């Protein structure tokens, strides 16, 4: 058994989970919104990319670039007109509304696209790999990982270095007082969800080129995304990536022992982290 390879593959898988989770983490961190439709939104974005690729004959990466503003708009509208009404102390309304949304998206896509498995083709990139001494890594998984890191660097720059980022954090602390500073919380939240949807589009690009997807393949990975967010701690994006990597490595290590343990090992790693750090690895000081 090649331990080095197992761990490398686990880390790369963690990049994928981190990417799935980054948007969720952003939304969860700023609005305490548990978005059960996150997985379905990734699938929605994947279909959007697919449509752009097949109708306009675009390269998937170009298609994703075009899909980003569209998804931003969808996210913005969703938050502004729907999800903002559910925010509050109670976690049930967002839970229920996003679950409803998840069902609506899934079945809407089913009506529109049928249950067929789809794929976005990335050409020869798909099977390309680089040799890193004792191990080989696929180019696509590497790109996924690098994209996850890049996304998190960018989001962190935005949140901690810009005035919009300050507004995000302030609104997250106290929307009413943020209003007194001239911040429109409804729009800040909408913008945050819009941004999350841009990240979702990137995640969708890698989901769609990596494996088949169909309208119902969203929820399967939702739980990993949540686990990554929670392991990392509320509001910490690097923590989310770390959470993804912990899950990924736990899964590949578990699978190396016996594939029966693959997914179980990821969940057990999650439970173990929470047992010792109930607020995740890098919790925010306040709240």
């Amino acid at each position, binding site marked *: 058994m090649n331990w080095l390879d197992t761990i490398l593959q686990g880390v790369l898988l963690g990049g994928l989970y981190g990417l799935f989770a980054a948007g969720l983490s952003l939304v969860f961190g700023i609005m305490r919104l548990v978005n059960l439709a996150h997985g379905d939104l990734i699938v929605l974005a994947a279909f959007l990319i697919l449509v752009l690729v097949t109708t306009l004959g675009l390269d998937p990466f170009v298609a994703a670039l075009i899909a980003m503003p569209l998804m931003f708009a969808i996210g913005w509208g969703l938050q502004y007109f729907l999800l903002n009404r559910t925010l509050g102390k109670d976690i049930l309304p967002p839970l229920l509304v996003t679950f409803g949304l998840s069902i609506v998206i899934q079945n809407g896509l089913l009506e529109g696209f049928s249950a067929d498995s789809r794929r976005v083709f990335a050409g020869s990139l798909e099977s390309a790999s680089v040799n890193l001494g004792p191990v080989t890594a696929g180019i696509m998984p590497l790109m996924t990982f690098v994209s996850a890191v890049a996304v998190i660097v960018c989001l962190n720059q935005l949140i901690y270095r810009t005035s919009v980022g300050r507004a995000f954090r302030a609104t997250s602390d106290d929307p009413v*007082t943020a209003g007194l*500073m*001239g911040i429109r919380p409804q729009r800040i939240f909408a913008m945050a969800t819009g941004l999350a949807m841009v990240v979702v589009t990137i995640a969708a690009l890698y989901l769609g080129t990596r494996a088949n997807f169909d309208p119902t393949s969203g929820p399967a990975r939702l739980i990993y995304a949540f686990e990554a967010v929670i392991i990392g701690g509320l509001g910490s994006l690097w923590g989310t990536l770390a959470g993804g990597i912990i899950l990924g490595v736990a899964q590949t290590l578990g699978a190396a022992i016996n594939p029966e343990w693959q997914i179980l090992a990821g969940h057990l790693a999650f439970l173990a982290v929470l047992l010792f750090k109930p607020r995740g690895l890098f919790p925010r000081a306040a709240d």
Partner: protein
Amino acid sequence: MALLETRGLTASYGDFQALFGVDITVGAGETIAIIGANGAGKTTLMRSISGVLANAASSILYRDEPIGALPAPDILARGIAMVPEGRKLFPSLSVEENLLIGNYGRKVDGPWTLESVFSLFPVLKERRDNPATALSGGQQQMVAIGRGLMSNPAVLLCDEISLGLAPVVVRDIYAAFPRIRETGASIVIVEQDIAQALKVADRVYCMMEGRVTLFGRAADLSRNDIHKAYFGTDHHELA
């Protein structure tokens, strides 16, 4: 001429009516104190003016424009800033960031910049990178005032800035007010400490149970008048 004016302002929380027809006026460059016991409706008045609570459009006029129905960010954009009761600093932001966010919705040139706020409250400069919640209560209040000033408002509303602060700290904070006045801004101070209020204010409004029960120039009001308006009893009844 009145810069800011409320006309028959009413406000309710659900079924509970907190204000019953409040009229106040604030002139340019004037400092107004609003006093009254707990629950008199002072905070409600501030929240109505600053747009946190929605009201009838015409019940609040600013430069003759009806602004009663506008949301908070629009009010700030017009130049009315608020220092809320209980300070309400943002715990995720550092001291400096708390100040910087004060002009998020209104970036106009004026006397107040990060530097001039730091010169008003020098202790904040030393702690600029600390999380705002790591400061003492008095220092937090300074951040809250500084944050209100950052948008260079024409009217600054201050709700209970001495609440729960030790008298020494209160004195330090009030020491800053003359310099704020010098810049020409109007100030509305909500205060329970009557003596303090009378010291800084040009005019005083006294509120009880959602109504203005007394108003006039600070210098003209007798302590007994105020007492009666404030507590509903004569001063001499006090032991």
